[in-house]
């Protein structure tokens, strides 16, 4: 039943113009699911205990994971600011291998960073060497480098790796003093594929020649990358090296331990930042003539406040539903008035409780409302598309090429409301099909202006914030305002599926085409009646998709 429901909305969305094969979004995967279209259905997917196993492409460290890994490789040493080219925004998550290109700029940045890191480490040898820096000899240096490489590569050094490291050390050492040689080899380790990429081989699975179970170290690497965006620490390595981590109970303990560590906040925030399109909050622009209190500081405050809110929801409130129902917000002097609250906290952000009749969850955060709006007026379209795309995982197709897709601003003397102008525009031609779906949700936001402030009237007319959600076959129907919509979303299976899908994309480094309904459903079905984010992440970690991979022919 759930699967059927999940497929209906994409079909409706696809049908709204007949242009895009939106149904492909959740169609069955290619065997192994590498993200390449075209092979769907060629062979049945590999499964373990009924759960689909996929073959992620070799993942490269994200910029965050690179920076964090370096930090954790050299505890006690202040690492200089590291520069890496920004990740592609053509995909949702930066660990999607499809866009991880080894460009000349990137490889040059890795080299420059490695050189800079080696520089500061050499200045702090006493903090890293297992012997006194003043009496360090070759044996001490090689011991340190072997340990460093093992931690950087996220597995105990294999025989051939150890031999190459020793040979490299001897070659470099023959022409350089000991500290210089240490720096050279350290730079090399930081540019090695085993550090920069998550390369997995796995071990055979009896009776299933096309499947491989991850080794303890490979599973530990996935776990630390997922939950910390970093390398495994000593306790995790200890249970990985002898494969105890493969035991479900041990994996559970370690996953919970990592989630309890403050380092998990950064990876969670990184995922939510991308999922909820917070990059748009980096460049909010508003017209000062229309919004006189807007200043250079308002946009950054909105961004920080929205990030704080989702962090609060994940770690304090905890439930998936609270993403739509929690009435807290983080405000400063600039943001409080937008919530209809008195200014009291100065420029720093403080948590407050908002008017529950007007606000609830992520969709009524002023930062999100402002980001999905234009400089002078709000945008029912951008807001509606956001809900369809990121909350329901059913992005509508793009407008046909020949349409004018600029927002309808009021003409001189025009007293129409935003809703009326958009309605007039979207009733034309072929627009109506898709916009019935998009605006049906987007018009529900009409109580919030372009900076997210509540309004009961617009241009002297009462705001009409009634909307209709269509195509879910689950929460379809009319609603009045976002608080009512939130009630529907909070209890929706479709929404829970979408959240699960996004976390699996991020956790496995796969793109949306691979994160199929069949892959997501077993994890989603494991959630209890009041699902929590923590519970969801633990289910992802325990899933067959996280612990196994298919064998590359």
């Amino acid at each position, binding site marked *: 039943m759930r699967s059927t429901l999940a497929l209906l909305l994409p079909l409706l969305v696809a049908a709204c113009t007949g242009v895009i094969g939106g149904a492909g979004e959740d169609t069955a995967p290619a065997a192994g699911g590498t993200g390449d279209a075209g092979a769907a259905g060629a062979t049945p997917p590999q499964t373990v205990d009924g759960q689909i196993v996929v073959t992620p492409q*070799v993942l490269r460290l994200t910029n965050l994971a690179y920076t964090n890994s370096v930090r954790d490789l050299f505890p006690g040493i202040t690492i200089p600011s590291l520069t890496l080219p920004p990740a592609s925004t053509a995909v949702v998550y930066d660990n999607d291998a499809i866009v991880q290109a080894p460009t000349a700029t990137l*490889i040059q940045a890795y*080299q420059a960073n490695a050189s800079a890191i080696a520089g500061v480490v050499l200045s702090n040898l006493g903090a890293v060497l297992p012997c006194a820096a003043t009496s360090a000899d070759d044996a001490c240096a090689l011991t340190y480098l072997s340990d460093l490489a093992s931690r950087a590569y996220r597995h105990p050094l294999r025989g*051939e790796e150890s031999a190459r490291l020793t040979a490299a050390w001897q070659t470099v050492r023959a022409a350089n003093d000991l500290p210089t040689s240490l720096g050279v080899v350290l730079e090399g380790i930081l540019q090695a594929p085993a550090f920069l990429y998550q390369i997995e081989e796995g071990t055979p699975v009896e009776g299933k020649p096309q499947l491989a179970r991850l080794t303890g170290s490979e599973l530990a690497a996935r776990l630390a990358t997922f939950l910390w965006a970093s390398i495994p620490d000593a306790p995790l390595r200890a249970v990985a090296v002898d494969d105890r981590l493969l035991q479900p109970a041990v994996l559970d303990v370690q996953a919970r331990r990592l989630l309890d560590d403050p380092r998990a906040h950064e990876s969670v925030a990184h995922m939510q930042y991308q999922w909820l399109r917070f990059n748009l909050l980096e460049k909010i622009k508003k017209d000062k003539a229309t919004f006189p209190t807007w200043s250079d500081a308002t946009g950054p405050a909105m961004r920080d406040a929205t990030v704080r809110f989702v962090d609060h929801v994940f770690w304090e409130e905890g439930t998936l539903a609270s993403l739509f129902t929690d009435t807290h917000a983080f405000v400063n002097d600039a943001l409080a008035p937008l919530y209809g609250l008195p200014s009291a906290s100065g420029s720093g952000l403080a948590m407050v409780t908002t008017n529950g009749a007007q606000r609830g969850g992520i969709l009524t955060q002023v930062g999100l409302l402002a980001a999905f709006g234009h400089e002078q007026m709000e945008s029912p379209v951008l807001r509606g598309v956001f809900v369809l795309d990121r909350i329901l995982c059913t992005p509508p197709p793009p407008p046909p090429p020949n349409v004018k897709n*600029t927002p309808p601003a009021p003409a001189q003397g025009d007293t129409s409301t935003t809703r009326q102008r958009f309605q007039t525009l979207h009733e034309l031609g072929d627009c109506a099909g898709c916009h019935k779906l998009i605006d049906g949700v987007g018009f529900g936001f009409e109580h919030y202006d372009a900076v997210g402030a509540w309004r009961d009237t617009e241009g002297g007319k009462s705001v009409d914030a009634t909307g209709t959600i269509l195509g879910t076959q689950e929460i379809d129907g009319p609603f009045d305002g976002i608080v009512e919509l939130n009630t529907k979303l909070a209890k929706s299976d479709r929404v829970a599926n979408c959240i699960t899908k996004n976390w699996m994309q991020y956790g496995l480094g796969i793109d949306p085409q691979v994160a199929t309904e069949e892959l997501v459903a077993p994890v989603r079905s494991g959630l209890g009646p009041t699902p929590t984010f923590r519970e969801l992440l633990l289910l992802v970690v325990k899933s067959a998709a996280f612990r196994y991979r298919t064998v590359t022919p």
Partner: protein
Amino acid sequence: MKIHGLSRRMLLQLALAGSASAMLPSLLPRRARAGQPVLPPRVIFVYNMGTVRELYDPVATAGNPAPTETDFELAPIHDALKPFKSDLILTRGISMASQDADTSAFANSHVRGGTHALTATNRKTPALAGGPSIDQLIAKTLNAPTPVTRYPSWELDFLNAPDMEGGTSYIAAGQTNDRLYGASAVLGEFPADLGQQTEAQKKAAAAKLARSQASLDLALGEYGGIKARLSKDDRAKLDQHAQTIRDLRAQMQLGTSVTCQPPDAALQGDIATFNVRPGSGATQAERGAWVKRGWDVQARLAVSALACDLTRVQILHLPGYGAIDDVIGYEPADYGGGKAHTGTHDLAHQCSGINQYGSGGTLWDVPAAVDLMRKLDTAQAQMFAQLLGYLKAIPRGDGGTLLDSTVVVYCGQIANGYHETDDLPWILAGGANGYFRTGRFLKYPKGTAHNDLYVSIANAMGVNVQTFGNPAVCKGPLSNLR
């Protein structure tokens, strides 16, 4: 004398390059000899988000009914290009035939053109192109089997971070190249070891180079030691990573032999000024001045890099709708009768000529709106001319200039406000060492594949290919360019 950040000594060195090869080894091709070009050719793609193609058309000279190949006047929007008329090839009819042949899904209308603009082949995903772009084909070929420039290519931008859109330059299917955003980032790409050095500095640089190369050798050894079974795509990606390391290793060696100067204090000062971005209280004029300064320093840095032979392949992103508004002092306008515009993007959508269905934009018959559109295009043409001026100011040593050794390709992602991708007004400037016969206006049959244009540009750069992009629409080098 200072010309846009290049010192007198560098200009002198460039001027003497033909006879003083010992001073500028990297500026001279290894095969340079009598009768060969003084400088190897360079290419710059100037990328514009959108155009209104009718406004780009040359006009007839006095007394003639229509412009011809050699008898024409530049369009009014191209007044700034008049000093370069003899350096230009203006075109009509060249189209993204590869886009018409691409039946895959796309994310939005600009992505249709954006994914095909420089790759000319079917998309890999709705938002990502399906093959390497022409700049990367040229850069890769020029720098194989071993690099000849410090950087294979540059893509410079200071404004247009694409959101949920694929990039412009692709090193392979789905794999966007990295842009260098902002002038300071570009400045940082100029090697620190440029210019004259003391013996001690040379020794230190040599030692550093040796250390860096040793560390890269260690990393390369690890790439060679990967035993895991990998998919074909993964293996290709890791092989490409290793090859890029090998290239970097060789490029480092090139860096020590370049004797040109880094950007001078004047340019560095302008970059510092540019780095102070106008706040929300800034006037439109101040914001416009910042955009113009951004383009100016970007163009000067680009030309400096070409002159220094740090790279021979570049993409420069031209300020487009939004940013250009402040440059031209744009104000929304309402002409009554439902005819209005709220931004330059909106203006361009409505102010386009006859589309494929035979209808015109709603503002096409409003002279004030068309004049405003011309003002926008004029501002962009002035920026284009500014770049050409910087290239032409650098003597090559044989009476020619850096522009003569360069081909600048004015391109974009859509032809008009209807998001059409056929009949885009491509412009070439500079002859790539006489490869192209400039000073002409060429009309091609509508639908002529831009793949063919790129084959010609690749050939001009010494890359001897007969096809590029989707082979089903590519017919080989474009006729009548030489």
